[in-house]
């Protein structure tokens, strides 16, 4: 279990689908290419939703694990190619 240095932290504890994704999307919009967002969530659906969301957006899921206070995700922002 690697810990990454995050540029932004999103506390999504207590939120249920789709709010963790919606909030993560909002924070990501304001971040730069290559920056890392750390998310703490309690919604079990996040385990499946964040990888799927990363695949769709092109962002990179660096790592996730179950921490003491919730599910912890590290996601790196990857700017989408222009097309």
């Amino acid at each position, binding site marked *: 279990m690697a810990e990454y240095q995050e540029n932004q932290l999103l506390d999504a504890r*207590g*939120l*249920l*689908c*789709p*709010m963790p*994704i*919606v909030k*993560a*999307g*909002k924070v990501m919009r304001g971040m730069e290419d290559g920056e890392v967002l750390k998310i703490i969530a309690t919604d079990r659906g996040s385990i499946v*939703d964040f990888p799927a*969301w990363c695949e*769709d*957006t092109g962002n990179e899921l660096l790592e996730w694990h179950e921490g003491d206070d919730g599910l912890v995700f590290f996601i790196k922002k990857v700017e*989408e190619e222009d*097309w």
Partner: protein
Amino acid sequence: MLETDRLTQDDVRQIVREEIQRAFKKDPATKKLSMVASKGTLDWAYPPLILATAGAAANMEAAIFFTFYGLNIIHKDFDKKLLVAPTGNPAMPMPVPMPDVLTGMPGMKTMATGMMKSMFKKKGVATIKELLDVAVELEVRLIACQMTMDVFGFEESDFIDGVEFGGAAAFLSDARKSHVTLFI
């Protein structure tokens, strides 16, 4: 780089496969989500709003076409209009088992609606208002069906800000350019 005359059949296959994948990825339809929301109860207001906001958060262009009772969801009085009735819905959890004839008694709709709202709040589910606010903020297109508006006697001013108006052709034109289309 490979020289053309040294390309094997497998190389060519690989190149073709990659080009097709790239083309699919560039297809704007993969980034579009078009839905019809046709139901006007509290429970059924959730699925279209959840999918649209999740889609918008994944950088999709999401559009919801509200028709028939679905118009309730974007009505200014959505909070009063979106109710849930236990009658005819055996799946709805009730505090005590109840025969259908009792679930139709006066006040049961209000009670069931209140129960659902407080259960959702306790569990941390977003409210319809929160989802609508997020949808507007993320530029989800909210389109009211003009025909059903006229039938039900709704005016444009009856709906929340940002609602557009259109017909079947407008939805279909949007839907044919979307890989994800749903009727809810």
